[in-house]
C-alpha cells in the first residue's frame, strides 16, 4: 500500500496533483512526475485520453474536474468531490495561475488564505492599507449537509482589490473550506455589481512540510488578459510565501494550550476546531 498515513481525511478526500494541462504530451514512457503525501507519483493520459496515476506500481482512482486532477489514495472511503458550480457558469473566465511550491504545512497555507487581518501589513497597497486595519464582524458556520466551513458577510477596505481596480473599494468576501487542503474565496467582481469572482486554492501536500499551492480563478473579467490576472495573483501569493516559510513550527499546532482567539480570527479558530474534530494528523504538529 503506497500511502501509510492513518489520517482519515487524506485517506478519504480527493487531493489535487495539479492542473490537467500538466499531462499534455505525457505518456506511460514519459510520465509527469510529482509527489503526494510523501509518495512519488507518475501520471499520463492513456489511449482513451483518460488520466492514469500510479504510485508504487499501483493505479490510483483519479478524477478530472475543474481543470484539475484529483487523486484518491485508494485506501478508505471516497468522499464526493466538492461542488463548484461557478466553474460551469456562462460568462465566467477560467484562468489557471499554476502551482507554487511552499516549504510549510498545507494547513498553514489554507489558514493564511482565510485570514483578512494580514492584508494591510503584507499586501500593502493592494488588499489593504494601514491604518485601515480593522476586521469587521462576520459570521462563520459549518454547513450541516456538506460539512464545509463558510465565513459570510466579510468585508475589508482594499486600495486595489484586483488587477484591474482603479480605486479602493469595500470588498465583500465569503470564504469556504471544502476539505482540509482545499478552500475558496468569493469576492466582489469589480465590473459586475452583485456578482462574486471565485479564487480556488487547491493545496497539494507533497509531505507534512512541503506543498504546491495551486490557484484557479473563476472570474467575471473582460478587460484584462490572462498574464495580467496571473501576475496579480502571483504577486499576492509571492508576498505570503516568505511569511509562510518563516513560520515555526512548519506543521500546524492543533493540540497545544488553548489560544485566545480574537474576533477577527473566528475563521481560523473554526478551521482549527474543525480539523481537530476530523482527526487531522497530516501536516499537524505532534504536540
Amino acid at each position: 500500500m503506497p500511502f501509510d498515513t492513518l489520517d482519515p481525511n487524506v485517506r478519504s478526500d480527493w487531493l489535487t496533483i495539479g492542473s490537467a494541462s500538466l499531462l499534455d504530451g505525457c505518456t506511460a514512457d514519459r510520465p509527469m512526475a510529482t509527489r503526494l503525501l510523501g509518495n512519488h507519483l507518475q501520471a499520463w493520459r492513456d489511449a482513451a485520453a483518460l488520466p492514469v496515476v500510479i504510485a508504487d506500481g499501483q493505479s490510483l482512482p483519479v478524477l478530472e474536474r475543474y481543470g484539475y486532477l484529483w487523486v484518491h489514495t485508494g485506501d478508505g472511503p471516497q468522499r464526493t468531490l466538492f461542488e463548484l458550480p461557478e466553474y460551469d457558469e456562462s460568462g465566467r473566465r477560467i484562468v489557471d495561475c499554476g502551482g507554487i511550491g511552499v516549504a510549510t504545512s498545507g494547513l498553514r497555507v489554507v489558514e493564511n488564505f482565510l485570514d483578512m487581518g494580514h492584508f494591510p501589513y503584507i499586501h500593502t497597497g493592494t488588499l489593504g492599507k494601514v491604518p485601515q486595519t480593522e476586521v469587521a464582524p462576520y459570521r462563520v458556520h459549518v454547513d450541516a449537509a456538506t460539512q464545509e466551513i463558510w465565513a459570510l458577510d466579510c468585508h475589508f477596505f482594499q486600495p486595489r482589490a484586483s488587477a484591474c481596480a482603479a480605486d479602493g473599494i469595500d470588498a465583500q468576501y465569503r470564504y469556504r473550506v471544502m476539505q482540509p487542503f482545499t478552500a475558496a474565496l468569493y469576492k466582489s467582481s469589480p465590473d459586475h455589481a452583485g456578482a462574486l469572482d471565485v479564487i480556488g486554492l487547491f493545496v497539494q501536500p507533497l509531505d507534512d512540510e512541503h506543498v504546491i499551492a495551486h490557484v484557479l480563478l473563476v472570474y467575471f473579467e473582460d478587460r484584462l488578459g490572462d498574464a495580467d490576472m496571473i501576475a496579480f495573483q502571483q504577486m499576492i501569493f509571492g508576498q505570503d510565501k516568505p511569511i509562510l516559510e518563516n513560520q515555526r513550527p512548519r506543521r500546524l499546532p492543533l493540540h497545544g494550550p488553548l489560544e485566545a482567539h480574537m474576533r477577527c480570527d473566528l475563521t481560523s479558530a473554526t478551521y482549527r476546531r474543525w480539523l481537530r474534530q476530523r482527526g487531522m494528523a497530516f501536516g499537524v504538529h505532534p504536540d
Partner: protein
Amino acid sequence: MIRLYDYELSGNCYKLRLLLHWLGLQYQRIAVNFHPGREHRSPAFLRDINPLGQLPVLADGDFLLRDAQACLVYLASQYDRAGHWYPDDAATRGRITTWLATADDLTRSIAAARQHYSFGMAADIARCEALARASLRLLDDALAENQASGRPWLAGTHEPSIADIACFPYAALAGEARIDLRPYPALQAWIRAMRHRDGFIAMPGILDPAL
C-alpha cells in the same frame, strides 16, 4: 514610451523595475505568463521578442534589448545623465562589469534553485548550491572590504551603481532557494542598506523595509 516584458516573480525583471523607478522613468509593463503558461518559450515570443526565451526584455521605441545586465547598462547610459549609476570612469566600469558577470552566476545558481522549488523546474541542486555559495562568498568578501574602506558599495563607490542593482535581487531571494545567508554578514548589511535607500520598491519575497 519604454516597454518592459516583465514577470512579477522574476528577480531579473525586478532589477529593471528598480532602476527604472530610481531613474524616475515612466514605462509600460507587459506581463508575460512565465509560469504556468511558459509564454516566454512560445514560438511568437522566440520569434518576435527574444530568441533565447528569457526575461526581461526592454523595448525603447524600435530598440529591443534582451539580457537584464545589458538592459541595466543601457538604461543607465541613456537616461542617467548624472552618471550616478554607471560612472564614466574606466576602473569603476571595469569593476562594475566584473559584478555583472557575478549577477549571471547568481541567476544560474540561486534563481535556478528558486525556480526548482517554486515552479518545479528541473535543476541540479548540488551544483546550484555550490555556485551560489562561491558567488555569495565573493560578494561578502568584497563588501566587507569596501565597507571597511568607506566605499561600501560593490564597485567600491560611495553610492550604489548598477553592479549593486544587478546582484541584489537574487542575493536577497536566497532564502527562497533554501540558502542560508547567515555566513555572509557584510552581504546581509548591504541587503539592508539597499532596502533602506530612499525610493526603494519591493518585490514578492523581498520585503519593503516599512513592513
